[in-house]
């Protein structure tokens, strides 16, 4: 069980979200073709299992929300049930997500793989290098890391593992 009231509020929101998600699945399952003209019974209809999954997700989401709501009521002061949990995302995570999305979602497939990889690895190494490091040292590290990673990954995948690169 989670400790204290750290995630109580986010669990209520999460529970409501799961109920909504389950409802969407259920509605979509009910809208699926039933193939009755081909002799399908209720058990062989494409929406049968997804519909059941939707119902189960709704039920579990409801239990999660109700449990968290009950816990919230037992907490005495607002400070106790404030969102005390560590934020899921911070600046480092934000920049990591940004760089990885730009690389895998934008650069790969649009510019040569070796260039995309060198740019990504170089930029990542530069951005997350220790701040006390001198600019010259940081630049050397980022160029070396980018070029070496790009070359080694390209050669190893294409020549040894015989894998086509994006």
């Amino acid at each position: 069980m989670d400790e204290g009231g750290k995630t109580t509020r986010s669990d209520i929101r999460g529970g409501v979200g799961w109920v909504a998600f389950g409802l969407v699945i259920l509605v979509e399952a009910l809208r699926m073709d039933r193939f009755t003209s081909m002799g399908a019974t209720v058990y062989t209809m494409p929406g049968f299992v997804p519909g059941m999954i939707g119902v189960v997700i709704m039920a579990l989401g409801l239990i999660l929300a109700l449990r968290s709501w009950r816990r919230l009521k037992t907490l005495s002061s607002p400070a106790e049930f404030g969102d005390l949990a560590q934020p899921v995302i911070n600046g480092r995570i934000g920049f990591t997500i940004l760089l990885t999305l730009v690389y895998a979602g934008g650069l790969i497939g649009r510019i040569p793989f070796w260039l995309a990889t060198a740019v990504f690895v170089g930029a990542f190494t530069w951005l997350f290098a220790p701040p006390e490091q001198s600019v010259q040292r940081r630049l050397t590290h980022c160029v070396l890391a980018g070029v070496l990673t790009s070359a080694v990954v390209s050669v190893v995948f294409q020549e040894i593992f015989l894998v086509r690169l994006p």
Partner: protein
Amino acid sequence: MFDGLISFWQSIVHFSTPEVIFYALLSSLVGVVMGALPGLTATMSLALMTTLTIKLPHDQALLILVCTYVGAIYGGSRSAILLNIPGTPASAASCLDGYALARQGLAGRAMGIATSGSVLGTLIGMFFLAGFTPVLGNMALKFGAYEFFWLALFGVIIAGTLTGDDPLKGWIAGVAGLFIAGIGQEPQYAYERFSYGVRDLAGGIQLVPALVGAFGFAELLTAMKERQAPVKISPFDTVIPRLGDITKYWRTILRSGLIGTGVGIVPGVGEDVAAWSSYAAAKRASKEKELYGKGSIEGLMAAETGDNACVPGAMIPVLTLAIPGSAPAAVLMAAMIIHGVKPGPLIMVESPQFVYDIVAMMLFATIGILIYGLVLTKALVQVLRVPQHFIVPIIFVLCAVGSFAISGRLFDVYVMLVFGLAGFFLRGFGYPMAPLVLGVVLGDLLEKNLRRALLLSDGDLTPFFTRPISAVVAAMIFGTVGWKIWTITRSKKP
């Protein structure tokens, strides 16, 4: 008995070529290194290696994966002992006494204990893998759609119950995994579900890019949350295991090996539970309970024997039932399917030699970790000093290229990104990833067998509860869920 030994020997001979031995040693090394690096788990290592070995012949590819698996579980102990950071979740129990021993200046001895425990644990597990698989395989031939439906559900429920802090969130993750498995064309009428006209979704979500995202990308994001502090590695002397430690604690080794293998057989549980269960059992039976947590050799031995014995144990349900015993075993099972091997009840009929091939692969992996444990530890621990900002981008490049390599589609890279981000945020809110993966892996098995069973019984639910094995598994599922829901609804603890 003798047929099994002969088959095992034939497998060893088959793999005893310089090329294969090189692959075995190299992949064990990769496993040890990846396992030792905090943030890189066995599941992630296997998912990445699956993509790298996609073009190799199936026996060589699976040998590499098995050696990586065993190596990674063992490798986690290095950082647990030297840094007090478990390299993989399986090594968390080893931190308690391993790091305490290191602080007493006994890091080398602790690593020797980890090596001997891991080697003996794997050997005990291998013994049961070779002995139990044919028996269980023959039993599984009698299983019908009802039993397979319950077993698939059991895997998801048990993984949800045991792998996270909150069973409710574990079940939600597992059921979400079942939903993901249902995306794309359904098996009976080829009707496209939840694909909304996206052509790439019609074939469903490929398992490996999803796993690389959920375990690779998501773990990298988690590792990046905080800036890595400069690594201070405890100095250590000899890492050669002492015979006295093994003979003195032989009961603990045997017990932990049995517990680890047993936990491995239970679908969806995994190495971390095996390590903690072995540790707890050893502490209960110990004459030196007061040393536990303060540098107990017995405690470290129990944890390391238990988690490595779980690896062969987790392969038993994979081979006989096509139901993975742990998250890394789920990846291994996916790799088997990609390489054209069909795990499941028919394996002892169609390719009985394959079971002994897996046992032989485990033996090669064990030799690999023994060699690295004895002679390369000082060199290997240097990898722990490599700064995070060099390792993370390289691993992410491998995640992206590996996802693309499976089918040569950029769509799979996007799948990896989506699963990575979703996995990271879900994990941040306390939803474990192992049940989700089990759900994705077992979704197809569950749906096919549920629909088949209902067709056979014409909608009658009675056979689900009256067939002996079905009744037992159903009782276990309802008992677990009922009891947990009762405790959840009764609990007012904030």
